[in-house]
């Protein structure tokens, strides 16, 4: 799983079977210092509560559809949770 920032929404009326009712958001993957890393992707919102501007974590590949009610939904990225805080460990030796 990785961190990402929700930067937009996607609405599609005509879509593949199984995608009905799935909310799509554009997310920008982040490194652990919350800086953008790589290109934005469209992800399904498995928590139904994420919105633009929010910090989230997401799963990719086969695990993405397992976050949704139907585990065979054809998606490749899904938001698995909304981040309240990333607590970085301080004073780690080495």
């Amino acid at each position: 799983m990785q961190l990402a920032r929700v930067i937009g929404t996607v609405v599609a009326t005509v879509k593949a079977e199984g995608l009905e009712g799935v909310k799509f958001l554009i997310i920008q993957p982040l490194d652990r210092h919350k800086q953008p890393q790589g290109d934005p992707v469209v992800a399904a919102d498995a928590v139904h509560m994420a919105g633009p501007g929010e910090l989230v974590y997401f799963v990719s590949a086969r695990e993405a559809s397992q976050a949704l009610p139907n585990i065979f939904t054809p998606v490749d990225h899904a938001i698995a949770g909304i981040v309240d805080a990333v607590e970085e460990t301080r004073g780690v030796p080495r």
Partner: protein
Amino acid sequence: MKVGRVVGTVVSTINAPVFDGRRLLVCDLLDAAGQPDGTYLICVDTVGTGAGETVLIIDEGNSARQVLGMTTAPVRSIVVGVVDQMSADGALVVDEG
């Protein structure tokens, strides 16, 4: 499997039900010299690791779900062990003593 170092935790209230009551660890991945390679993973903790520890990570969904005892869960990365020692090319690169 991969070797990483625990550098933080993710606090989340609204999430997929499988993450309820589980710790999410931010882990820097390490290269063969034991140094962070610039990438990271958010992993589910299964062994009770602490801050700064070097850990063994599974980054494969079926194995991760098997360890968690779940057949369907949106989990791919889990921490499955704490590294005591690691050597590569004849040099000791991690020694937690």
